[in-house]
């Protein structure tokens, strides 16, 4: 074993280059900055240091620095990630490329305008309770709730929306709701006490058919929600029940619809 280093690792610093987008949606430059990196730093720390030392006008949105508010979404070395949850030691050597999200209009530097998402959200029919009991409670089984619990972990960082090629590459914002809202609709549609039916909305207005299940949303979700496998595909299957399955239609015709 080698003898312990005389300098505690926490105080040793190392310069790293960051190539950061400076500009807005119409024009700008990728500008290099240097930050002194010490052990345990995350990318957001480095951005703050650059703001403090070199570029006080560098725009960046953040709030919790704990991966819970979803504000600091950006693209680090080309990958949609939370800046506050990306540890410096997890990045390969060389300059670090930091860009704003691509799927939303860039306001300034690393800040994008995500209000489109809130507009989509408003169009989703809210929870409609099935049977409130006399004492005012809604009773349900734990194992039924376990399935939808996963979807409640969403922090609305919109990284999944940013990486989804339907939005990112094909700009289908007017027609397609995006993975974040399939997650929300899954949490409502699979809820044991929800009486609403969102399948028509899913097919016609949210255009779930545009999703080609290539799973990029799942790859980037910082909450590790199995967006494609547990939300989107089960919803696609429910849409199939309603619109593409003559056998299911015949069963509904004979026995009546459940919802």
């Amino acid at each position, binding site marked *: 074993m080698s003898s312990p280093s005389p300098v505690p690792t926490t105080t040793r610093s190392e310069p790293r280059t960051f*190539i950061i*987008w400076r*500009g807005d*949606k*119409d*024009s*700008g*430059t*990728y*500008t*290099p900055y240097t930050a002194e990196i010490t052990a345990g730093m995350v990318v957001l720390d480095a951005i703050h240091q650059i703001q403090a030392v070199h570029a006080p006008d560098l725009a960046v949105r953040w709030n919790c620095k704990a991966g819970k508010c979803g504000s600091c979404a950006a*693209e680090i*070395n*080309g*990958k*949609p990630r939370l800046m506050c949850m990306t540890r410096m030691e997890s990045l*390969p050597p060389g300059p670090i*490329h930091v*860009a*704003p999200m*691509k799927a939303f209009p*860039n306001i300034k530097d690393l800040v994008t305008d995500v209000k489109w998402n809130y507009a989509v959200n408003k169009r989703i029919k809210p929870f409609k309770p099935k049977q409130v009991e006399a004492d005012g409670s809604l009773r349900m*089984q*734990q*194992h*039924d709730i376990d399935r939808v619990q996963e979807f409640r972990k969403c922090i609305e960082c919109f990284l999944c929306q940013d*990486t989804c*090629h*339907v939005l990112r*590459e*094909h700009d*289908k914002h007017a027609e397609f709701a995006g993975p974040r809202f399939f997650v929300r609709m899954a949490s409502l*549609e*699979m*809820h*044991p006490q*929800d009486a609403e039916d969102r399948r028509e909305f899913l097919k016609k207005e949210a*255009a779930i*058919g*545009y*999703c*080609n*299940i*290539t*799973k*990029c949303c799942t*790859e*980037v979700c910082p909450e590790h929600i199995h967006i*494609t*496998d547990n939300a989107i*595909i*089960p919803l696609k*299957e*429910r*849409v*199939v*029940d309603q*619109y*593409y*399955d003559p056998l299911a239609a015949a069963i509904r015709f004979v026995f009546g619809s459940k919802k």
Partner: protein
Amino acid sequence: MSYAPGTVLPGPHAKGLGATARSDAWWAAPLGFFLLLAGFVVYSTWAAFQGAHYWVPGTNYISPFYSPELWGTSPHAWFGAAPPFWPLAILQYSPALLILGIPAGFRLTCYYYRKVYYRAFWADPTACAVGEPRNDYWGENFLPLILWNAHRFVLYLAIIFTCILGYDALKSFIFTTKDGGHAIGIGIGTVILTLNTVLLMGYTLGCHSFRHLVGGRCDSFGAKGSTTHSLWSGVTWLNERHPFFAMISLCWVAASDVYVRVLSISGWHDHLILFRF
């Protein structure tokens, strides 16, 4: 992506095929899957057209590409030698051509394979946050890909096929002895064909449509420990491993065909442990 410092760009992101700021080997996985799937398609097409060496005399081994053998010349055939409707004048008959559409269609419409080939063959997208070659996009919202919504119907057929391959695996424990009698035993082929069924079952029963069918479609699974909840949990376990079973069963099916073919062509004897009764 690197730019000369100070270059003014018309926005933070570039467009077009392969445009990305990713510095990792994002192309490696799609390239690997492209080679694997293309290799499988080439080999299985070649094997399907052979129409010979798909079974091994003295054993009950039959290549999974050729089972069920509805019409054919081997002892495994269900009906006659060639189907009466086959256009023999145009196309030489091979039993595989009649049935291979079912497993092929099952994998073609499988949610997991869709992901793989949309990425590896169609670059839609090749990898996450990597630019695509085309601007227009229909996804699975329009023809032809909207047809993939019929995956569950191919699943029903695939379940039947998997059962038939299970029957083949059971039969592979029975051998013909030199004096023309029968004996129970285990050969390398028995192990290969049995494992083939196990892997195919792991793949088929982990299907997303199956998961929906056994319980996913319900908002409530019923009481704890209910059949619905147990079934759904079991299928979910397999479903989480669906990519693994999808690829391993694909390779194993091809390996099974190769093994049967090699035995059949060479006339080698399989290593056997025979139990006589």
